[in-house]
């Protein structure tokens, strides 16, 4: 194995995040309690540098590094950028919540940064081993984040569930990877793809391995029937942790799925298409129907996540360039919407009070018209109503699905999205149609949060009106 400096240049964003994490770890030791904001600043600076480096390093030709373990291409550049941007938003939203509860400690940021690092590794993985490494780094950090509030029993319970089920999912994935390795003799996607095209579908071990891979992917995405952990963890975990695990990791999960299924196993598309189809229909159906019955908004958003995962799978299973691009577009857009929605919940929370039920949104328009407008954009976007970007994302996915003549699937999808519209509308009902409860304290927010939320809401609107830029990035990534 030759050491080559060019290898390091390609992973500069990862290095930046790693250095920031280590830096926060050390600096935090020497900080007095009143100076804990430095952690926050350091983290943001580190992430922004990583964004800049992603931009600087990215955009080139498809290249493979580290003896075939890492790759840099359009997919990795775009997804890295998206993960970093969403993470920046997440950390900004989380700060006031942490500060109110005297939890503005280094560990939160260190764990968060390591999770981000894991996602970045997943995104640029070119072998099953690297993907798995990234996944575990992300998952372990997130397990710890969920248990971050050590006083909270619910949080500890959620972390335990998350850990056990997450480990189960990882186990399935690893088992599938080992079968694929046995069948093809390699863990590198390129080599696997080549071996598959030579051997064809005859190899039953191969197809069996895919079953486990898809189960693993289903677990990580939270697709029905592997969704059981999602609502409990969303409800039990502290909201900042939910914000971090509910937004950017969906982009990483998308990377996990595309890297493995598209880069490695495109040849066997016919086999995994059917599996994803079942997962997609079940996810859209169950997610949307059960969400209606929720009064806890975190639980509701958990089921809404499940239904959106169904849509992402629709794009993936189309198996075409258009389909992958639409799924990618959807995943990025979803991460932005989820970050915004949980961000609003954090804004509504204050010392000693967590906004968790739909009732807590009552009269938001009276309390702060601007945040009410942003939340409305987010909700309409999740429901897929134009002119927000949620509509564009759904349109692209539907287009990909109709292109492969699965008209019935498109009809199922739109039908469930109408059902889904109901619970998003209910949120808006609480925001606009109900008056605030008496003595509701004024919302206290910082300028940073307001700027971030404004960006978050307006970008959903702007991308809906002018989707071309992001869309062409997504499409060129897959050509």
């Amino acid at each position, binding site marked *: 194995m030759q050491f080559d400096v060019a290898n390091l240049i390609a992973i500069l964003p990862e290095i930046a995040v790693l250095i920031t994490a280590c830096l926060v770890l050390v600096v935090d030791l020497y900080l007095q309690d009143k100076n804990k904001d430095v952690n926050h600043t350091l983290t943001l600076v580190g992430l922004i540098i990583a964004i800049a480096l992603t931009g600087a390093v990215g955009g080139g030709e498809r290249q493979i590094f580290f003896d075939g373990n890492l790759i840099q291409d359009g997919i990795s550049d775009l997804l890295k950028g998206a993960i970093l941007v969403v993470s920046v938003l997440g950390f900004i939203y989380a700060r006031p919540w942490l500060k109110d509860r005297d939890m503005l400690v280094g560990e939160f940021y260190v764990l968060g940064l390591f999770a981000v690092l894991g996602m970045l590794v997943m995104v640029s993985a070119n072998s099953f081993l690297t993907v798995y490494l990234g996944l575990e780094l992300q998952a372990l950090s997130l397990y710890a984040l969920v248990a971050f509030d050590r006083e909270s029993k619910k949080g500890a319970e959620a972390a335990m569930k998350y850990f056990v089920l997450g480990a189960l999912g990882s186990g399935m994935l690893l088992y599938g990877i080992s079968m694929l390795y046995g069948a093809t003799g390699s863990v590198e996607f390129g080599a696997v793809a080549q071996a598959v095209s030579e051997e064809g579908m005859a190899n039953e071990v191969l197809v069996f391995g895919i079953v486990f891979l898809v189960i693993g992917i289903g677990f990580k995405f939270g697709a029905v029937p592997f969704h059981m952990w999602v609502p409990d963890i969303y409800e039990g975990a502290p909201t900042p942790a939910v914000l971090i695990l509910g937004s950017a990791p969906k982009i990483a999960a998308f990377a996990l799925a595309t890297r493995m299924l598209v880069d490695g196993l495109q040849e066997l598309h016919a086999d995994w298409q059917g599996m994803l189809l079942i997962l997609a229909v079940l996810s859209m159906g169950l997610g949307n129907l059960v969400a209606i019955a929720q009064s806890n908004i975190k639980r509701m958003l958990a089921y809404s996540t499940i239904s959106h995962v169904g849509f992402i799978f629709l794009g993936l299973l189309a198996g075409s360039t258009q389909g992958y691009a639409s799924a990618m577009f959807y995943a990025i857009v979803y991460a932005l919407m989820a970050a915004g929605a949980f961000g609003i919940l954090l804004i509504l929370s204050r010392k000693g009070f967590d906004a968790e039920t739909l009732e807590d949104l009552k009269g938001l*328009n009276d309390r702060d*018209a601007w945040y009410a407008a942003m939340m409305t954009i987010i909700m*309409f976007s999740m429901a897929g*109503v*134009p*002119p927000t970007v949620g*509509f564009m994302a759904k*349109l*692209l996915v*539907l*287009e990909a699905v*109709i*292109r492969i003549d699965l*008209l019935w699937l*498109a*009809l199922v999808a*739109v*039908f469930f*999205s*109408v059902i889904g*519209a*109901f619970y998003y*509308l*209910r949120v*808006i*009902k609480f925001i*606009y*149609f109900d008056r605030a409860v008496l003595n509701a304290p004024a919302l206290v927010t910082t300028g940073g949060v307001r700027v971030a939320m404004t960006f978050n809401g307006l970008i959903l609107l702007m991308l809906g009106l002018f*989707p*071309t830029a992001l*869309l*062409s990035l997504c*499409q060129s990534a897959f050509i």
Partner: protein
Amino acid sequence: MNEFPLLTLVIWLPIVGGIVVLASGEKSPSISKWTALFFAAITFLLSIGLWIGFDSNTAQMQFVERSAWIPTFNVEYYLGVDGISMPLIVLTTFITIFVIVAGWEVITYKPAQYMAAFLIMNGIMVGVFSALDGILFYVFWEAMLIPMFIIIGVWGGPNRVYATIKFFLYTFLGSVFMLVALIYMYFQSGSFSILDFQEMQLGITAQTLIFLAFLLAFAVKVPMFPVHTWLPDAHVEAPTGGSVILAAIMLKIGGYGFLRFSMPITPDASASLTWLIVALSLIAILYIGFVALVQQDMKKLIAYSSIAHMGFVTLGFFIVFTIAQNPALSSGSIMGIEGGMVQMISHGFISGALFLCVGVLYDRVHSREIADYGGVINTMPWYGAFVVFFAMANAGLPGTSGFVGEFMVILATFRADFWWAVLAAMTLILAAAFTLWMVKRVIFGEVKNDKVAALKDIDQRETFNLAVLAVAVLALGIWPAPLVNVMHTTVENLVVQVTTCKLPSSERSDCVLTHSEPIVAIPND
């Protein structure tokens, strides 16, 4: 032909105005009101420019603007108007002014947001009428729901949440299937341009499915029996302005959809399903007419009367297919469509005015129950005069605009089928019965209670609203020629379109329409 982006301006100026009004905040209501009125008025004046610059000798799209929007999917920002959409745009900008004026003093909770919602709504509705790209149309079509949803939900009556969610979900359910149909047609024709859709050939199965998908979307909007149930709820709960926009413009969008999409794109399916539409229209005219008769709530009564009148519109449009099978009577088909169009415009004025009338009483007494009133004319003579006038127009009195459309449609229906015409003509009796009976109970008679005795007659603002609308109703009733002329060439062309068989050559033998030759697509420059 026109370099100046007039349509873009008419769409986006009110939207920008709405954002300005929103930004002005709730600190100074009078500034936001005047700003809103200013933008509404400018938009109306600009849309008059559309009428003046319109060339009524051609069926081509005018004021066309075309530029790429999402190039990868051939989605374009493609606007243009013809003789069908242009009058509806002018109606939209015209009615918006009254809505803003009507909410002037009544709306006390967050007036800036109220005004802004109507301005934004105005722009979006103009967008619906002028979009010539399927996706652009769909975006405007759906976006329209957002302000309306909020208007009903925030400023509506006691049961507003139920009504507005029902309204939203009904329309949303109808339109998502239209979206699937649009995407399907994109793969058949290679672009999202509505004009390309109209030149495309489709087998009868595909046509029927597309027709049904569109029917679901437009029937909910019109609304046609049996998907009309959201309308009475939405109307009753909406604030006056919301009811006016709903009745005057939003219902017309459904009718417009039939003319722009269903009939020209899927003429063969339309022809084979004409019986369905005619049946539903006649049910709307008759059954809903009887339902209106027994209403206790004035707004509900007018809402049902709207459904009945819109039944006339769909009847007028679809008898074309029956008439077309008898080539000797082709002029009847033009009359049917034109009658439907005149009916739409006229109903925009009349129903808008009637809802404003109810709003006047509601603002004073806070009740819409017919039983709470009686003898209003004694305390509000001017108001009583206006109500009687608009009620007569609603009943289709000759000389008012209500008569023209109904007369044309009934005349055209006679050419299609004698008994349909007889049934449709029943509306003249029914509409007279339910409106005049309401007028009798509310306006005439002895002063019923103290509240009525304490009523004050309409002020300048209300008089302005009602007087202008009354002039419009009279003008259209006495001299409908300008309106009919402006749309005539377009309608002629539309009739050729809808009577042209669009089946592919393999199914050509099944054609029932007169022009069985495919239209030769005019090559684009």
